[in-house]
């Protein structure tokens, strides 16, 4: 009974929407090249900032989402690791690589009316350094050179440093406002230079911003305001979009993206990393200590089938660690293709003709459970009996930090525009993570070599990746990514074009409605 009205309802909705889309479709979206002014853009995300959107020193993760519309960074970075000016118009790395000097944009005012200058920049950078924010370990000091020049002194240079400044470590907030109201206030009241002024923030609900009339980039922004809504339940998210209560929705790639596409929304998507299995290759009693076993695992998995079944045209199988949009991606690389016979042969060679029992440890909230089930099933076919041990964040981080035994830790390896950052973050000797993952001799030197050049070099990165592949250090499964479903009247939001997924271009976004 319920099924009936339900399907009638959904079909009705679909028909209505399709008709509406056809009507809208009559006017090609990009035919109107000239941006229109007005409108409030409502962006829906699954999770919002935790609560620190105005104090870069303490901002982590999703906090950047809340900062983006109102706070700007020293530099911007695009997906191919190109550093672009923002609040810093120019920068120079010293010859001795012991400092970077930034020339700041002049005539920029914060939302509270105070000026942006070198002292404010120093204040912000110093706070980030004092908070021991990640990536600041090599900063020895921050100094003001003149009113619009600031310098960061370094103990040691690496080619990630600038990229970091396109995120919260490079965010600039009004010194005056912070000093006047205190840090606790500042955490929830961002005062930046951005295209929008902060209005209100309610955790897990909404953050609202209104147009900054005095934005330094004259003529921008086009929108009257921006609202970030945080909705956890995917079905509710979808309903909100269909009801026209939002313009942009952040989604995972897969079924949801396919559904939204079918409903006629524009889909913006980009890989964000590679789901990989990290074997316990260090512990002596682990079967994964043997390279051939690791290879067997890789041969046993039919990545194409998984991607076909679960990707809905949005996901790709991964045979190498960097996803297809990365500078480090090698389009000609073949990797180890599905070959269960070979897998069995390798297992027999290594003394496991009947396989063995092990487990896969995924984080229960961050993986596609179905993919894990598929992995379990494929490994089962070559005799490796797998238990799936879904764990929550807490337990997962214990494994990640303290090691795991005879198991494959399932970790999405995130992609940074500068792939060196990925390698450094997950696999260098400094990384406190993954102690159960054996690093071959000389591996860390390869990473350090790649990292320390002035500009990141693809060849150096490839060297590291080749070593990893030869040793079967990690087993990539499939690319994962983020996507945005966007109403057709929304343009130029710049989602997923700028280094980090939290970076977009609220200043350029406009709506043709």
């Amino acid at each position, binding site marked *: 009974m*319920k099924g009936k*009205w*339900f399907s009638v*309802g*959904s079909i*009705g*909705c679909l028909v209505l929407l399709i008709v509406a889309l056809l009507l809208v479709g009559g006017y090609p979206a990009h035919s109107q090249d000239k941006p229109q002014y007005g409108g409030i853009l409502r962006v829906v995300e699954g999770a919002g900032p*935790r*609560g*620190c959107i105005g104090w870069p020193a*303490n901002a*982590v*993760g*999703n906090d950047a989402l809340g900062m983006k519309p109102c706070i700007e960074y020293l530099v911007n970075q695009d997906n191919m690791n190109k550093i672009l000016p923002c609040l810093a118009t120019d920068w120079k790395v010293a010859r001795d690589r012991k400092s970077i000097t930034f020339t700041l944009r002049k005539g920029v005012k914060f939302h509270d009316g105070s000026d942006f200058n070198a002292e404010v920049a120093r204040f912000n950078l110093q706070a980030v350094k004092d908070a*021991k*924010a*990640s990536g600041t*370990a090599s900063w020895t000091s921050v100094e003001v050179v003149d009113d619009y020049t600031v310098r960061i002194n370094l103990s040691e240079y690496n080619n990630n440093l600038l990229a970091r400044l396109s995120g919260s470590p490079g965010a600039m907030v009004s010194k005056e406002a912070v000093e006047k109201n205190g840090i606790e206030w500042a*955490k929830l009241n961002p005062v930046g230079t951005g295209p929008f002024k902060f209005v209100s923030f*309610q*955790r*897990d*609900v909404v953050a609202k911003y209104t147009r900054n009339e005095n934005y330094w980039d004259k003529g921008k922004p086009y929108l009257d305001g921006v609202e970030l*809504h*945080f*909705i*956890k*339940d995917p*079905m*509710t998210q979808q*309903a*909100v979009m*269909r*009801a026209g*209560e939002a313009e942009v929705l952040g989604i995972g790639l897969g079924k949801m993206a396919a559904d939204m596409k079918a409903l006629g929304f524009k889909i913006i998507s980009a890989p964000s990393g590679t789901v990989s299995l990290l074997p316990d290759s260090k512990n002596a009693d682990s079967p994964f200590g043997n390279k051939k076993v690791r290879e067997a695992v890789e041969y046993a998995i039919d990545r194409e089938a998984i991607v076909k079944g679960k990707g809905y045209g949005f996901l790709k199988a991964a045979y190498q660690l960097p996803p297809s949009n990365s500078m480090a991606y090698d389009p000609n690389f073949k990797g180890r293709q599905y070959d269960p016979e070979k897998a069995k042969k390798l297992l027999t060679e290594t003394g496991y003709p009947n396989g063995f029992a092990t487990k896969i440890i995924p*984080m229960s*909230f961050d993986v596609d459970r179905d993919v894990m089930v598929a992995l379990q099933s494929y490994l089962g076919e070559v005799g490796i009996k797998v238990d799936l041990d879904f764990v*929550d*964040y*807490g*337990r*997962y*981080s*214990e494994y*990640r*930090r303290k090691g795991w035994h005879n198991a494959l830790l399932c970790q*999405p390896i*995130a992609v940074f525009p500068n792939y060196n950052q990925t390698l450094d*973050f997950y696999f260098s000797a400094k*990384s*406190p*993570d993954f102690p159960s993952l054996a690093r071959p001799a000389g591996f860390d030197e390869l990473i350090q070599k790649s990292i320390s050049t002035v500009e990141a070099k693809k060849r150096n990165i490839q060297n590291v990746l080749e070593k990893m592949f030869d040793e079967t250090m990690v087993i990539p499964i499939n690319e994962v990514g983020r996507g945005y479903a966007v109403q057709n009247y929304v343009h130029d939001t710049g989602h997923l074009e700028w280094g980090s997924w939290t970076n977009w271009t609220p200043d350029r976004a406009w709506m043709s409605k």
Partner: protein
Amino acid sequence: MTTYIIRRVIQSMLVLVMVTMIVFLVMRLLPGDPIYMLITEDDLIQSSEEKIAALRHEFGLDKPIPVQYINWFSAAVCGDLGVSIIHRGKVAKEIIGRLPITLHIGLLAFIISIVVGIPLGVVSAVRRGRWLDTGVTLLANLGITIPVFWLGILMIYFFALYLGILPVQGYTSPFEDFWMSTRKIIMPVFCLSVFPIASAARQTRSSMLEIMRQDYIRTAWAKGLRERLIIVRHALKNALIPVVTLKGLMFRNIIGGSVLVETVFNIPGMGRLAVDGVISHDYAIVQGIVLLIATVVLVVNLVVDLSYGWLDPRIRYG
């Protein structure tokens, strides 16, 4: 009476202390260090061991558990529920912002379940065996079998998308925009009240049937009273006694149900905060919420116990 209330309040406080102790202990038994959670949740930040130690000290997690408890408890007594590890915000402030929302929806659902459920049960009992009774019984039984979140999403698709008469999600304070607020809470309140309505109707029905067999009802008939008077004056008050007990117990589950409903309808209430807190091992949040929920539940229970006195003069508080 006063003595009784004082004794009950003292008892409730003991229970509260026990509740906080249980939660405190259980939360600390959870595998996984909340400080690590902080790191893992933010995948791309790496903290040195030194920074972790500093954080741990900041939150007082380096002290022995009894000391932690005493510190937390003595602060809690003064209204300071500590700082959320994940949000870094004051827990008390966070909860105060959300409690009214959960209570708004929860109490409405609670009241509706009483106002609708009890008369349904009465009607059903009085018309025992007729089609009305059959209908009510069937609905009541369906009502306690539907998964709440499922009902929620079906309602969203029907009322918000298909009919387009209600907003999909969200919450607006009634003081801000009463009409909008009401429109927004219709669905969540309905979802939340389905189970309590059904169970209240069932309980009232069986309790009414039981009471209608009592000798004093026969006495009332023998006096020549009208059926309606007998039901309203003689039977209902007696029949409500077990229903009130049930409602007292039901209240906590309405609060519990709000966990699911708040997720579906994207309402920034306490239920969601609690679930997120549990999952991310945010000790302070969970402790604070449990303390608050327990307080509310205990207050409701006290009210329920006192309302027995009104319903049933045989109960003496001594």
